């Protein structure tokens, strides 16, 4: 026989204003197994909680129902009070007679009272059948995997490493640095991007707590928060990185020429290459598909070129001085155990070929990232302003915003950073070439961040022409090789056009390649726009629905460098809060399979959104098994099981049916 204590909260006037507490109390006293009924003005306050604790300690009560507000905010408070008094926290139910009763039925006092009676009756019916349950604690691996070596990944890794945690930083390119390393100057401070980033790259490479693994990808994920078991694939390099000293000899003598993806094809690299001059680690890799050695081996079985290894002796040219070339190299795999993961894989700039109306076939119509490379000292022109078509210096440049962004046909979202970087490009150009003519076409000028408005006005003062009014409709290539840009100037109330030497398209920020597959490995989902989904854009911007998996930077959505760093450090903080205590709590509200009842139908397995259910051998048969650490307590499997073999602890079938009966009783 249960001894149920029912505690009615007035919630100030919130509940008492619509529901007659005295009448409710009289009714509740008549319910079966109710030992005591009390009411108080604020049940969640200290004196209110003391009332409950007193009853438990004195033995009057061994089940608790609190009729008050919502368990979402106050459930944990009462659960803790009950546990403090010595009672199992799961022998507790809340009846929400505020959000679900007094508030919506404020003007129907009779109806509100009747509903309150039913809601409390239902909670009492359930709590009588509640069982004591225990939360579980498991040891937590005190290490973290950070995927992505861009600015967000690096800052997250550094914060975690400085907190004493072991960090594995995995990056799929040969070097860390990401998109930020490709940028010339950064707004609004006009810092040289490489100058502020390379010290951090060095710090990451040298930090004793960070194991830097580049040219590698996450291959397989097993386990769960606190105990992830992850296999990393280190891609084949054909160069022994233990020996390679980054001298660059192989990159200079390799005869193969390949379009350089780092510079978006604006210049060429060799098959043996170092990604960029400030690469960390500064080591070379060989691109097998363009290497003459491998191409000839495939065709004829005989190597036609080993210049990187052997040099060209007749000409006195030496090969690799460190004897690091390793044609028999293979992919390598390593397994790591970590407690949590941060995904910071950045973004991909949208290519121009989609936009046929802007003549993308013309070499003088380029994306803003390509323009960034042209402006960069480490880029294809050594930082000199040259038209890709003929190498001459452009005198008139048109820049077009919102190419692929704010566009239902491509990406409905705003890519956020383009307005500012267009102004930044304008400022860089006007500083170097005061007489250059610049026309910036915007829909709106979005310069909302700190110090951005000042940046905008300053750029206008340099004589940069800002044209607002919807997008440029068309860019044509004229017979003389120049580009005609046609748009509408809303402020001038007129269609406008101009002849430009160079057109720069501010294309959208897109999710990086493979992000959906990567997310799926961790059961982290992508949103409608293709970026990894946070749990709540305001309250939990760095958590994903997969416990222990966090996100930071542009993989979560377009943002600039200050925001990427802030979010990376937020993710590091949230991860540390999870990992540092050393133990992880798994709540008792999970489902369990009674394997003797299980009919092996397998219906539950694909239904689980957390991929927590596997078929496992049990007493010679294949039965369903739910991994307790992965189960999030959603109840889908329990309701779907045709054999009623799954028990959903905390919400059993008997408990739910008792609630339904209580609610529907006349």
């Amino acid at each position: 026989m249960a001894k149920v204590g029912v505690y009615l909260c007035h919630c100030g006037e919130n509940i008492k204003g619509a529901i007659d507490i005295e009448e409710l109390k009289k009714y509740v006293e008549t319910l079966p197994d109710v030992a005591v009924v009390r009411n108080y003005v604020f049940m969640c306050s200290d004196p209110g909680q003391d009332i409950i604790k007193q009853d438990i300690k004195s033995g009057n009560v061994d089940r608790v129902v609190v009729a008050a507000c919502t368990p979402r905010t106050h459930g944990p408070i009462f659960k803790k009070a009950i546990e403090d008094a010595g009672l199992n926290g799961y022998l507790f139910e809340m009846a929400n007679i505020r959000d679900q009763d007094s508030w919506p039925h404020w003007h129907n006092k009779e109806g509100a009272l009747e509903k309150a009676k039913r809601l409390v009756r239902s909670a009492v019916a359930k709590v009588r059948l509640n069982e004591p349950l225990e939360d579980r604690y498991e040891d937590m691996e005190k290490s973290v995997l950070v995927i992505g070596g861009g600015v967000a990944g690096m800052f997250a890794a550094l914060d975690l490493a400085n907190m004493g945690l072991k960090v594995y930083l995995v990056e799929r390119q040969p070097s860390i640095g990401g998109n930020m390393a490709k940028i010339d100057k950064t707004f609004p401070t006009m810092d040289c991007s490489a100058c502020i980033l390379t010290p951090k790259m060095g710090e990451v490479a040298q930090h004793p707590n960070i194991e830097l693994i580049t040219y590698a990808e996450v291959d397989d994920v097993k386990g769960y928060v606190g105990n992830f078991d992850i296999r990393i694939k280190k891609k084949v390099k054909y160069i022994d990185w233990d020996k390679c000293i980054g001298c660059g000899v192989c990159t200079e003598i390799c005869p193969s020429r390949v379009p350089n993806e780092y510079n978006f094809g604006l210049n060429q690299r060799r098959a043996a290459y170092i990604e960029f001059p400030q690469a960390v680690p500064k080591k070379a890799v060989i691109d097998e598909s363009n290497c003459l050695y491998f191409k000839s081996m495939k065709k004829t079985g005989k190597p036609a070129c080993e210049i990187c290894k052997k040099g060209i002796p007749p000409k006195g040219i030496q090969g690799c001085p460190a004897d690091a070339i390793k044609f028999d190299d293979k992919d390598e795999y390593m397994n790591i155990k970590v407690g949590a993961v941060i995904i910071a894989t950045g973004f991909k700039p949208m290519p121009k070929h989609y936009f046929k109306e802007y003549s993308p076939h013309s070499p003088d119509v380029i994306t803003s990232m390509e323009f960034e490379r042209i402006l960069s000292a480490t880029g294809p022109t050594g930082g000199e302003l040259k038209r890709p078509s003929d190498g001459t210096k452009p005198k008139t440049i048109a820049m077009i915003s919102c190419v692929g962004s704010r566009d239902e046909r491509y990406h409905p979202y705003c890519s956020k950073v383009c307005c500012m970087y267009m102004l930044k490009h304008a400022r860089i150009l006007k500083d170097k070439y005061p007489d250059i003519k610049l026309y910036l076409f915007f829909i709106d000028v979005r310069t909302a961040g700190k110090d951005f408005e000042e940046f905008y006005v300053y750029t206008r003062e340099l004589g940069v022409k800002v044209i607002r009014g919807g997008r440029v409709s068309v860019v044509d290539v004229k017979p003389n090789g120049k580009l005609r840009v046609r748009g509408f100037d809303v402020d001038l109330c007129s269609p406008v056009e101009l002849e430009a030497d160079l057109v720069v398209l501010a294309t959208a920020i897109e999710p990086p390649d493979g992000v959906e597959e990567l997310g799926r490995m961790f059961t982290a989902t992508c949103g409608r726009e293709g970026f990894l989904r946070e749990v709540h854009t305001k309250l939990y911007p760095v958590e994903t629905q997969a416990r222990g998996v966090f996100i930071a930077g542009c993989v979560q959505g377009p943002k600039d460098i200050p925001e990427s760093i802030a979010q990376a450090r937020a993710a590091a903080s949230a991860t540390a809060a999870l990992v540092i205590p050393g133990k992880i709590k798994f709540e008792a509200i999970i489902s369990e399979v009674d394997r003797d009842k299980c009919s092996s139908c397998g219906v539950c397995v694909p239904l689980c959104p957390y991929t927590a259910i596997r078929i496992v051998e049990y007493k010679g048969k294949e039965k369903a098994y739910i991994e307790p650490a992965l189960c999030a307590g959603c109840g889908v499997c329990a309701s779907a099981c045709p054999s009623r073999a799954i028990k959903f602890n905390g919400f059993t079938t008997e408990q739910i049916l008792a609630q339904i009966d209580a609610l529907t009783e006349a």
Partner: protein
Amino acid sequence: MEEGGVNVIDLTQGDESFVRELIALGADELRECIQCGKCAATCPMALAGLEFFIKRIVHAANLGLRDVLLEDSSVWGCQSCNRCVEICPMDIKPYEVIQAVRRAAMKVESCPANTYEGLRNLYRFGHAVFPKGFEERRKKVGLPEKPPTALSFDELRKKYQEVLKQTILEEIAPFPLD
């Protein structure tokens, strides 16, 4: 505007030296205009349907579109009410932009006919604009026929004309200054 009915403005015809000229003629903070539209929202002449209302004038000035601006007489319609100066959040004094455009226009003799008339009246009488038959109306309400301005005081008027002769009026006046 192109000939032949194609209504498009070629931005590369914009002249940066025109922008600098306007800045030198008093539109100091011309380039800081962010085209927010507050001036146009308060301007009584924009309400009256002026084609090149204040915001449009400032933007055309920033683009250096000398011919477009000087071909339209809207800039002479400004009533000097000063609302735009009071409301501009970037403090660029749009009225000064209008004045600068007028000054540039006068230099190239690009203004409506009644501008010259007003200028001539200003020089001769000290008033640019005055209603016809003002003497009778003044007498009717018991005021002296002539107001106590340069109209009534010859010596004052002569001194005033001396001052005016020392301004740019000497260069650009299309009528004799005697």
